[in-house]
């Protein structure tokens, strides 16, 4: 191991090219850098960090161009990059598998550390390949702002993996990089596209109460099947459209006494009915990236148990829901904000009827349509 006091570019790049491990400063912390495309170097890094298997590493690039070579940049990723450059931020995208194994996560995502730190950028530029930007500490040890602090927690064996250290003294405190995942917004996830309803029924909802009432009405319509077949209300609509509000109405009609709240975080919330053995199962697919995650919640068993299930963001997991088309009654419910042009047309109609005081479409106007596919 060699320790130098200033960033000697030639030397750093030389070491990295030969599969070496360099401890070097960034704006936030000392990092352990290796050539992210060199499998041997990455293996060495895993040993140095004392990391469990399967834990990915973030990488640094020179900028957008190199980034695009290694990951699929979707809109969210571009947006984050544009708005928050130069970070510190780590953007997780779908990787293109051009780095060494062990860098991307088990599900093929790659985290790009966005920086404008001069030495880091210069090194990557000269090397022409991304480098790992993982903090230099051993796993679960304090983040190193000083080399002496780093060495305190390293074993002899770990130190032996280091080829070069650039010690520029203590790095002033700077907030750590925020990690953010953009893959939930990937086209692959969203590809399932629009749910088309045949023979649909449409109502206009002008208030939360009206949206709840639609939930109640739909329950009354399908209640007779309870206990004979599973009933799935597959809810589709943009953020804030009223999917949870609809479910509140549904729950009230079913006799649920508890307050129905958003299941986004827990993924699934169950409500027992006071008098019977039946349950309302409220699921949210907003955080799900694939149909398999719905299956993972024992969805098939819920169907054979003849449950009543409300699924928010059902379009994200439409395939898994459709699998049960035969067994279950699946009611697709679409809620959308009423387009402005319709709102205007409607208010003109009202005016023509002499209700001149009626305001041009309110913010609460939604179109709710449902049907069984």
């Amino acid at each position, binding site marked *: 191991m060699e320790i130098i006091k200033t960033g000697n570019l030639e030397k750093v790049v030389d070491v990295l090219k030969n599969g070496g491990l360099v401890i070097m400063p960034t704006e936030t912390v000392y990092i352990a850098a290796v050539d992210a495309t060199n499998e041997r170097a990455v293996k060495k890094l895993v040993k140095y960090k004392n990391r469990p298997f399967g834990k990915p590493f973030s990488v640094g690039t020179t900028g957008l161009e190199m980034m695009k070579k290694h990951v699929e940049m979707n809109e969210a990723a571009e947006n*984050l990059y544009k708005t*928050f450059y130069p970070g510190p931020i780590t953007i997780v995208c779908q990787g293109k598998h051009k780095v060494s194994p062990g860098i991307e996560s088990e599900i093929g995502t790659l985290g790009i550390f966005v920086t404008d730190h001069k030495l880091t950028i210069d090194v990557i530029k000269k090397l022409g390949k991304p480098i790992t930007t993982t903090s230099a500490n051993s796993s679960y040890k304090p983040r190193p702002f000083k080399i002496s602090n780093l060495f305190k927690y390293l074993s002899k064996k770990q130190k032996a993996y280091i080829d070069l250290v650039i010690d520029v003294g203590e790095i002033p405190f700077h907030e750590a990089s925020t990690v953010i995942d953009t893959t939930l917004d990937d086209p692959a996830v969203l590809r399932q596209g629009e749910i088309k309803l045949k023979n649909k029924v449409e109502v206009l909802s002008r208030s939360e109460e009206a949206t709840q009432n639609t939930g109640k009405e739909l329950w009354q319509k399908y209640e007779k099947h309870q206990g004979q077949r599973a009933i799935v209300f597959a809810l589709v609509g943009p953020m*804030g459209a009223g999917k949870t509000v609809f479910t509140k109405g549904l729950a009230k009609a079913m006799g649920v006494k508890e307050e129905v709240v958003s299941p986004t*975080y827990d993924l699934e919330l169950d409500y027992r009915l006071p008098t019977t053995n039946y349950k309302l199962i409220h699921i949210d697919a907003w*955080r799900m990236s694939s149909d398999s995650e719905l299956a993972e919640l024992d969805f098939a068993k819920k169907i054979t148990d003849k449950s009543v299930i409300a699924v928010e963001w059902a379009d994200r997991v439409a395939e898994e829901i459709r699998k049960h088309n035969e067994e279950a009654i699946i009611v697709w419910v679409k809620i959308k904000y009423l387009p402005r042009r319709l709102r205007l047309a409607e208010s003109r109609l009202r005016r023509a009827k002499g209700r001149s005081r009626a305001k041009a479409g309110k913010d609460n106007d939604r179109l709710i349509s449902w049907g069984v596919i």
Partner: protein
Amino acid sequence: MKILAIDTSCDETAAAVTEGTKVLSNIIWSQASLHAKFGGIYPSLAKRQHEERIDFVIEKALKSAFPKITNHQSLITNHITAIAVTIGPGLAIALEVGIKKAKELAKKYNKPLIAVNHVEGHTLSVLARSRNSKFQITNYKFPALAFVASGGTTQLILVKEVGVYEIIAQTSDDALGEALDKAARMLGLGYPGGAILEKMARLAKAPAERAHLHDVSSRQAHYNLPVPMIGQENKFKFSYSGLKTAFYKLIELTKKKGLGKQQIYDLAASFQDKAFQHVERMIKKTIEEYPVKEFWFGGGVSANIELRKRIRNICKNQGITMRLPYSKKLCTDNAAMIGVVAYFKAQRKEFVKDFEKIERVPRAKIIDASP
């Protein structure tokens, strides 16, 4: 008395060793932490992932708690007094993994088992102290008002004493952390975006007509959005769905005019401002109605500097002591807070009597936390 605590309530796999309120180790296999330990933050195959990670996380917690002991085989036998585990609230299939493991260890090593409520964990997280701290927090006064705000919970809880709680207010739709995450995603900033939203909000610019205002944050809040439940604080309910809808429409409108960097910063600040004003008003209302002596702030959102600042102001004006978890790792989901709760429960001899009867309670409430 040293406790090995386990929490697998949702996305995070966590284990810790605590002694009293002292945290000897606090290991979190985080899927969205600040340390770039990403790997797909969504609950992809939640159960399988917890199962794969739990042994590693427990071993790490034990090793870090007892760095000088080399005989790992006997660590639990010789040094751990009891095992604690979160039984809810949380995702059933995830909770199950932690409970199964805790039961297995308690049986194998013949240790008492303590069942803990996750929200009580966040509530008492402010009492935890670091390994090196010399003094224990013992001067806390009751009743304390706890605000637990995370991705899954938004509750104001009156702490009459440790173990005796009353829920004052909770959300009727989205949790605060969830609302912040969703706002970020609506702005096209990925997930979970609460932390990024906070950073962007700091870059907001003061519109001229508000430049005279004292409070920096309301100066920065640029766009017109409704404060949730304004004037209806006496209903003691949080609600974020209306604000979310208004924000969605505001973004659509702003997009038409062009959504640039500065607009995104200003939108972020405006959303945060209104979401937090709701919290401030609720807290003030509660303090008016209840004789609160201390304010405790736990859960992931307690890491938000802006909200801390606003609440600190309220507390200062009211002469109330404010307590926060001593580290960010105690704000997010973790097992150290579960160990702290378990310590108090152990003192009251609240152990699981029949291991076979310990069950996950996905919708557990803090008021049922103690028998």
